[in-house]
C-alpha cells in the first residue's frame, strides 16, 4: 500500500507544510522525511497506516462524543445521591474559567522557577490551605488521588517506623483504597490487617487493640468512614500510640474538614485524602487530586513535590520546588516515591475553590451538608420499613437498609429518575440490603422530600 507523502498531507495541528518541509529537508541535507527514520530497522517499521477511524473534524467529534455521552444516565437529568468517595458539590463558575487560562493549562511542571511563579505560588497556597484544614504542618503539591495517597502514606509510615511489617487498615476505609494499598505493597513483604466496626459503625477499638502488635508500623482509619460514620480520633490514636504506630487519617469527603475537628488536632501524624469534593466534577472517577499533610518531623519522608518560599537575587519573595533530594529524578531507586507527574491542575482547582469559599463558605457548605443529611435521615427514620443501621455520628452520608435487596430498590428509584445510592453488597457481601446515600448543598428540601417519598413508596411496592 502507498503511504501518504508528508509533503502534502497537512493537518490543522501541525503547522509546517509543503514549502517549509522542503526547505527544512534541504537545510538538514536529506532528500525525504523518510530518510530521517533510517535508524529504525526496516523489519520493525509498519508498512501500512494504522487501522483506526479519523481524521475527524470538530463537527464529527462533537457529534460522536455528544451522542456517546448522551447514552449515560447521570446527574444531568437524574436526582443523584451518589457518594462513596466521589461527591457532587457546587462548582463555582470561576474555578473552571480560571483553569482554562492557557498559562496554567498548557505549562509544564515548574522546573524553571523564573518563568513558572504562577504555578509555584499557587501550589504554595494550596499547601497552606491543606495545613489549615487538616491541622497538620506540611502538605505536598498533590498525589494522584485518595487511594494512591493512602498507599504513599503507608509507605511513608514504613520508612519512619523501620523494621516493622504490618499495617492495620480499618475495614471502613474506602474499599478501593485498601485494595490499591494491597496492590502497591504486594512485593514489599508487609501484611495488611483489617479491623472491623462495631454496631455504631465506628472502628472496633478492642479489635484494633488486639491487632496492634509490636510489628505494626501504621494504623489507617477513615473519617467520615465508608459507612459515613465519624470516627473517634482520640480513642484510635490512644490505641495506635500504645503500639508506637504511625497514625494515618483518611478523608474521602474533603468538605467535611470545613466543620469537623481535623485529625491534626487529635494527634494524628498523617492526613491523606481525596480533594475531589473541592470543586471538581465526579467525571467518572478522575482526574481527582490526592492530598497528603504530615507533622513537621516527617517532612523529609514526604513523597512527591514540595514548594518552598525563598528570594531571588534582588531579594524578591519567590517560590521554588524544594527538598528535591527525596525525589526520583535525584535519588532514583532510593527515592521516597516514584511519582513525577501529579495532579497540579486539579490542585489548582482546589486552591481556587478553597479561596472562593474561604473561612465562612467552607463552614457553611459543611453545615448545610450536615443539616440536610440530618433532615433526610429524620424523614427516613420515621418510616417503619426503613432502618438506618449505624447509629454513630454522621456528616453527609449514611447507610440505608430496607427489607428489599438494595439493587432492586435502586432499580425502582431509577424509574423515577433518581440515582438513589451505592449498594454495599459489592464491597460487603453480607450487607445485601444496604446502600449508601450522600447529601450535599446541591439538594433542596424538595429533592430530599421527593427522595424520601419515592424510597418509602418503592419499599412498599417491592414488598408487595
Amino acid at each position, binding site marked *: 500500500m502507498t503511504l501518504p507523502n508528508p509533503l502534502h498531507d497537512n493537518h490543522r495541528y501541525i503547522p509546517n507544510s509543503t514549502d517549509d518541509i522542503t526547505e527544512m529537508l534541504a537545510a538538514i541535507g536529506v532528500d525525504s522525511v523518510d530518510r530521517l527514520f533510517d535508524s529504525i530497522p526496516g523489519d520493525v517499521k509498519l508498512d501500512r497506516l494504522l487501522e483506526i477511524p479519523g481524521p475527524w473534524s470538530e463537527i464529527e467529534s462533537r457529534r460522536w462524543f455528544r451522542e456517546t455521552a448522551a447514552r449515560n444516565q447521570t446527574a444531568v437529568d437524574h436526582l443523584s445521591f451518589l457518594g462513596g468517595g466521589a461527591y457532587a458539590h457546587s462548582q463555582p463558575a470561576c474555578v473552571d474559567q480560571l483553569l482554562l487560562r492557557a498559562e496554567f493549562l498548557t505549562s509544564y511542571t515548574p522546573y524553571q522557577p523564573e518563568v513558572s511563579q504562577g504555578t509555584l505560588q499557587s501550589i504554595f497556597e494550596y499547601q497552606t490551605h491543606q495545613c489549615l484544614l487538616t491541622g497538620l504542618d506540611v502538605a505536598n503539591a498533590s498525589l494522584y488521588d485518595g487511594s494512591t495517597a493512602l498507599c504513599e502514606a503507608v509507605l511513608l509510615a514504613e520508612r519512619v517506623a523501620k523494621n516493622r511489617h504490618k499495617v492495620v487498615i480499618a475495614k471502613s476505609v474506602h474499599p478501593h483504597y485498601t485494595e490499591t494499598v494491597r496492590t502497591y505493597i504486594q512485593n514489599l513483604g508487609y501484611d495488611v490487617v483489617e479491623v472491623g466496626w462495631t454496631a455504631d459503625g465506628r472502628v472496633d477499638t478492642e479489635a484494633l487493640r488486639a491487632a496492634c502488635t509490636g510489628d505494626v508500623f501504621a494504623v489507617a482509619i477513615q473519617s467520615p468512614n465508608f459507612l459515613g460514620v465519624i470516627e473517634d480520633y482520640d480513642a484510635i490514636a490512644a490505641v495506635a500510640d500504645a503500639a508506637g504506630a504511625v497514625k494515618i487519617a483518611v478523608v474521602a469527603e474533603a468538605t467535611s474538614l470545613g466543620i469537623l475537628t481535623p485529625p491534626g488536632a487529635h494527634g494524628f501524624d498523617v492526613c491523606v485524602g481525596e480533594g475531589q469534593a473541592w470543586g471538581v466534577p465526579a467525571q467518572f472517577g478522575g482526574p481527582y487530586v490526592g492530598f497528603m499533610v504530615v507533622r513537621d518531623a516527617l517532612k523529609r519522608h514526604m513523597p512527591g513535590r514540595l514548594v518552598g518560599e525563598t528570594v531571588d537575587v534582588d531579594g524578591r519573595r519567590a517560590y521554588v520546588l524544594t527538598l528535591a533530594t527525596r525525589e526520583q529524578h535525584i535519588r*532514583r531507586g532510593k527515592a521516597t516515591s516514584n511519582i513525577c507527574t501529579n495532579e497540579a491542575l486539579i490542585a489548582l482547582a482546589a486552591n481556587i475553590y478553597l479561596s472562593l469559599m474561604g473561612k465562612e463558605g467552607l463552614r457553611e457548605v459543611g453545615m448545610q451538608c450536615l443539616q440536610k443529611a440530618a433532615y433526610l435521615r429524620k424523614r427516613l427514620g420515621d418510616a417503619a420499613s426503613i432502618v438506618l443501621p449505624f447509629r454513630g455520628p454522621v456528616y453527609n452520608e449514611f447507610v440505608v437498609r430496607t427489607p428489599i435487596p438494595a439493587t432492586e430498590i435502586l432499580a425502582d428509584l431509577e424509574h423515577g429518575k433518581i440515582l438513589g445510592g451505592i449498594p454495599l453488597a459489592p464491597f460487603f457481601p453480607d450487607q445485601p440490603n444496604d446502600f449508601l446515600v450522600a447529601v450535599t448543598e446541591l439538594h433542596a428540601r424538595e429533592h430530599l422530600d421527593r427522595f424520601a417519598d419515592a424510597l418509602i413508596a418503592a419499599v412498599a411496592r417491592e414488598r408487595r
Partner: protein
Amino acid sequence: MKTPAPSLIFEDSRPGRRGYKLPPLDVPEEHDLPESLLRGEIADEAEVSEVGVIRHFTRLSKLNVSIDAGLYPLGSCTMKHNPRINEEIARTPGFALSHPLQPDHQVQGNLEVLWQIEQALKEILGLPRVTLQPVAGAHGELTGILMIHKALAKSGNPRKYILIPDSAHGTNPASAAFAGYEIKELKSNARGTLDPQTLADAVTEDVAALMITVPNTLGVFENEIKTFAQILHDKGAYLYCDGANLNSFVGIARPGDMGIDVIHSNLHKTFSTPHGGGGPGAGPVGVSEKLVPHLPSPTVERREDGTFYLDFGHPESIGRMRAFNGNFNVLVRALTYIRSMGPQGLRRIAQLAVLNANYIRARLKGTYHLPYDAPTLHEVVFNDKNQTAHDVHTLDIAKRLMDYGFHPPTIYFPLIVSGALMIEPTESEPKEELDAFCDAMIEIARECEERPELVRSAPHTTPVRRLDEARAARSPVLRWKKG
C-alpha cells in the same frame, strides 16, 4: 524596574469579604452531632471576594510561560499543542457529571469511550491488551513491573533484578524498587545506546526485565531492540519499554512488533492532553499476550450485543492500581485527539516532530557541541562544552533563553551527558518559531564569548530572577503563616 512580588491569597484576605453564595438553608437548622466533633472557625483561612479571586489567579497566571505562548522545548516532555476541542468534549455534562460507581447499564457511553481508546491504543502499540487505570507515566511503570513480577512469581521465581540503562528517567529505577526489585544499571556505548553484548552479559536467571526507553533519552533509536527482546526472552525475562518518547515513532513502527512486552504511554505527551503545570496525566500500559492475565482489574469488555461491562473476573490480576476508573476525563481528551488525527495524522506527528528536531540539530550543530553523533529522532541533546571555556554553563544558557522569550530545554539530563541541553520541539512548531529559537541560541553562544557576564547573570526580564534555592532547602518554608 523591580516589580513587587504578588501577594498570597491569604494576604489578600479582609474580614467579611465573600467569594460565594449558597441558597438559604431550607431545612431546620438542626443536627445531632456532639459539639466535641465540630471545629471552630478555620483560623486564617482566606476571605476574598469573587473579584479578588479572579484578579489574584489571573495575575498569577501571567507569571507563567506556556505552550500556547510559544515553543516550550523541554526534552522528553513533549510539550505539544493542546487542542481546545478536547477540553470542550471533556466538559460534556454527560461525561463530567457521571459518577464512578454507577452500574454498567447507566454508563454505557463512558464504557464505550474506555473500550474505544483501548482499541486505538492496541492498534497503535501493536499489543493485545491495554490497561487504562494508571494515571501517570510512573504509575504505568509500577503497573507494568508489578505485572512482570506476578507473571514470574507464577512460574516459580519472581527474580531479583531489573536492568536499567544509565540514560534512563529517574522514575524507572524508583518504580522498579517499589515493585520489589533491585536495580542493576547498564552502561551505554559510544553511540549512547545499549550494546547487545552488555545486555547478554547482564541477563542471568535472576533478571526479571530490562527497562529501556525507546528511542532513548538522547533521541537515538535502539536499533538492536529486537535482539534485546530475543536475549531477554531466551532467559525467560521481559522487555519493558518506557513510552515517554512514543511521539517520535507513532504510526511509523509499533512496540509489539519489536518484541516489547510492556509499554506505558504518557497520554499527556504523545496524545496532547494538557500538562496543567504538572498533571493530570494518564499512563495506559500495553502488554503482550503472556501478561494479559495479570492486568489490573477491572477491565472493560464488550458483549456480542454491543453492550459494555466492567469485568472483575481476573483471578491472576495484580489488583487495582487506583480507586475507580483511572483519569477518565484525560482519556476522553486523548481519544478526541486520536480521532482528530486519524491514521494519517498520527503518522504525521512522528514525521514532523522528527523533522523539526533534526532541523534544530542541523542549525545548532557547530555552535553547540553534540556529544553523541548518532542519528536522532524527535529530540537532540547538545551540551555546554564549547561555552565552558568562557565559564558559561548550561544553566546560564537556559536562563538566558528566557530573556529571548523561550522556555529553556530540559537541562542536565540525561545524566550520561555532562551539561546536557535536551531539546524537543514537537510537531507543533512552525519553521519560523524554530528559526527564532535557533537564532536566539546562536546569539547566546556569541554572548558567551563577548559578554559572558550577561549570560551568567540571566535572566534579566522575567518576573523574578535567579532564586536562592539553597535557602529554600536549608530552612524550608512550606506554607504561609500569619505574620
